[in-house]
């Protein structure tokens, strides 16, 4: 099929030309790239905000900013990273691009809705970020918008809340679209248990998107109502219950962690077999663990609130369920390791990312167990340990998975190869920077450094210097990776149809794929 004469999706001329041909295109591949460019733009902003915070923490006391600016920056960093990057991240970029191709479809089930989702994403981003440029102070609540502060503060929380609400809507529509796509558009012969693991992970993710996101939607609206109409659902001064807010918030926001990590696990499940030259070990177990994570992850939200006031029974139940959800994650990890065992391993850039993912995900996951146990949690709650844990999972887990995926599928997306030695160098610097940045924060948290403060006592100085130093290394690595990819997308040598010898359908179509992916819908035997 590679010698096809049909135009590929990058060259195709539709109803509109130039930029309009992209922002009004309903082609899932173009929409995937729209997401790629917008998410990466926000990611660079979010990463630089993080760098500013690490700069502030390089020494005790005021270094470059006041406490208020620090509060505003960690809030904006959180909102950007969570709502604009890691939640849409892999499903919207790689999922949009590869889900239809991997299941042998021409597009997603609702192409127009797919485009609307991207527009809603942009609208939500603009509304959320407008909070920075309006009259008055930037939001300073943290990305969690905890009540009652979120409706007492004079800062511009309202646009941030409404922005997050719109982004949730975009996420729901993508979820619905993906579920129906997988139910209705699989190629003939592709039974459920023949579907590749990346689509499976998107399937689990999509269900969480559909079943959890509405809860945050209504919760954010209730906070809006508190601010505008003074209703009092969560306001103790009006008889409301602030802990109720935390419950509603985490009913979504904990499953959201699995919206982030499941697709990343899906990418790893594609990359590891390809570069180990083996089929995945225990395909069924990986599928079942995906669905189990999606299901059990729904019932563990209370572990964010161990110190907020709950009955002993609930504490015990939430702690137990938290340990339970670790089992399917461990099953996946063992399956990946077993796939590597006696495989014929080829270390290429995507594989470096995948293997370092395993290392970082393991540390992140095990530190999660520390936080899930009740006694340890009381000590570590709201310390730098928590920050280290979720950056290992959310940034390590999702980020390394995303970069594994983008280096794996780059030749297919752009039809060109990247410079492997620069990509490997970037990975190495990034990996070293990542560990230098976040590992000391475990130590800081255990010794008692609270999070969300711009200042600290002198005892914490040495570890903070190391951590801040790591941030600079990591940003340098990130710059190399991104510049290398951008340059290669334009100037890299032409890629083959299947540069890594992958076995899934996307490697049978030309690089870059033609407009509707397949000249003839393939039949799976």
């Amino acid at each position, binding site marked *: 099929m590679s010698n096809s004469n049909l135009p590929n999706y990058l060259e195709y001329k539709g109803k509109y030309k130039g930029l309009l041909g992209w922002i009004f295109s309903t082609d899932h591949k173009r929409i995937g790239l729209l997401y790629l460019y917008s998410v990466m733009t926000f990611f660079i902003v979010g990463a630089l905000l993080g760098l500013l915070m690490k700069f502030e923490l390089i020494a005790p006391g005021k270094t470059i900013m006041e406490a208020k600016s620090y509060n505003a920056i960690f809030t904006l960093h959180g909102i950007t990273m969570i709502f604009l990057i890691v939640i849409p991240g892999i499903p919207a970029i790689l999922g949009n691009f590869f889900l239809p191709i991997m299941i042998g479809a021409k597009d997603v089930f609702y192409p127009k809705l797919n485009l609307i989702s991207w527009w809603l994403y942009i609208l939500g981003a603009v509304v959320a970020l407008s909070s920075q440029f309006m009259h008055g102070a930037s939001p300073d609540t943290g990305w969690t918008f905890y009540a009652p502060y979120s409706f007492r503060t004079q800062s511009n929380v309202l646009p941030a809340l409404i922005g997050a609400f719109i982004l949730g809507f975009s996420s729901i529509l993508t979820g*619905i679209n993906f579920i129906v796509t997988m*139910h209705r558009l699989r190629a003939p012969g592709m039974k459920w248990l023949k579907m590749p693991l990346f689509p499976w992970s998107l399937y689990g993710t999509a269900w969480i998107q559909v079943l959890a996101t509405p809860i945050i939607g209504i919760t954010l609206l209730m906070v809006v109502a508190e601010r505008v109409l003074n209703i009092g659902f969560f306001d103790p001064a009006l008889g409301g219950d602030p802990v109720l807010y935390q419950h509603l918030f985490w009913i979504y926001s904990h499953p959201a962690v699995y919206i982030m990590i499941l697709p990343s696990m899906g990418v790893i499940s594609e990359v590891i077999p390809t570069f180990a030259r083996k089929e995945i070990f225990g395909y069924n177990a990986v599928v079942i663990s995906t669905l189990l994570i999606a299901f059990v992850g729904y019932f563990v939200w209370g572990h964010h609130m161990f110190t907020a006031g709950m009955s002993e029974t609930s504490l015990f139940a939430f702690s137990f369920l938290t340990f339970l959800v670790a089992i399917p994650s461990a099953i996946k990890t063992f399956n990946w390791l077993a796939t590597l065992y006696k495989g014929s391993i080829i270390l290429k850039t995507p594989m470096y990312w995948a293997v370092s993912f395993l290392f970082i995900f393991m540390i992140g996951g095990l530190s999660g167990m520390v936080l899930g146990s009740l006694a340890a949690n009381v000590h570590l709650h709201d310390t730098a340990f928590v920050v280290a844990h979720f950056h290992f999972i959310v940034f390590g887990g999702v980020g390394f998975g995303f970069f594994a995926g983008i280096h794996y599928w780059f030749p297919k997306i752009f039809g060109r190869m990247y410079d492997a030695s620069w990509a490997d160098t970037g990975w190495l610097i990034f990996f070293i920077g990542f560990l230098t940045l976040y590992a000391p924060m475990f130590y800081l948290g255990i010794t008692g450094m609270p999070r969300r403060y711009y200042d600290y006592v002198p005892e914490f100085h040495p570890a903070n210097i190391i951590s801040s130093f790591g941030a600079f290394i990591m940003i340098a690595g990130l710059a190399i990776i991104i510049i290398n990819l951008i340059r290669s997308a334009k100037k890299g040598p032409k890629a083959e149809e299947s540069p890594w010898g992958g076995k899934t359908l996307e490697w049978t179509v030309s690089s870059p794929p033609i407009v509707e992916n397949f000249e003839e819908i393939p039949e799976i035997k």
Partner: protein
Amino acid sequence: MEGNNSNDHYDHEGSKMGMWLFIFTELLFFGGLFFVYAISRYKNETAFALAAEELNVTTGAINTIILLISSATIAMAVSAIQLKKKNITLIFLAITLILAVVFLVNKYFEWGAKIEHGIYPGSEILQQLGYGEILYFGLYFAMTGLHALHIIVGIVIILIISVKVYNEKIHAERFVQLENTGLYWHLVDIIWIFLFPLFYLIV
């Protein structure tokens, strides 16, 4: 929810499936408010019962009947289109629209009376009442307000769909958009079916 009507691919079942998923999300969306209602009621039982006496059961009952009939008429519109009866479809859609508007007019007078008595979120009279009353009326305005917003969206959708039926974009072979509109309308109906007893009947 739009199907793939830009190209030749038409999948009635698939399009309906997407709509059902959307309805799940709507139920969960309202579920958050029902959850807050349940907990607030559990904590302020007597206050909720007293506050509920303020509502007019007759107006609520009339609105319930109106919505139930409108659900029936839109279901008949879905049947009529399959029997290739375009005019009857349009008549049933028109009746549904009229009933929806009557519902809103009723709601307007009901809310208006409350506001006239000084009962609205943040009002001085309400602040003087107890916590339970404040929460009850807060929830009343939030939940029925959000529901009324869904009615308004429903009216807009039914209008668009009626035009499509009139132009024969929707016909006996391709009526999933009409059917999905019906599903949405039933959703709006069923949410009201729960709001009515929770606010008007339990005293």
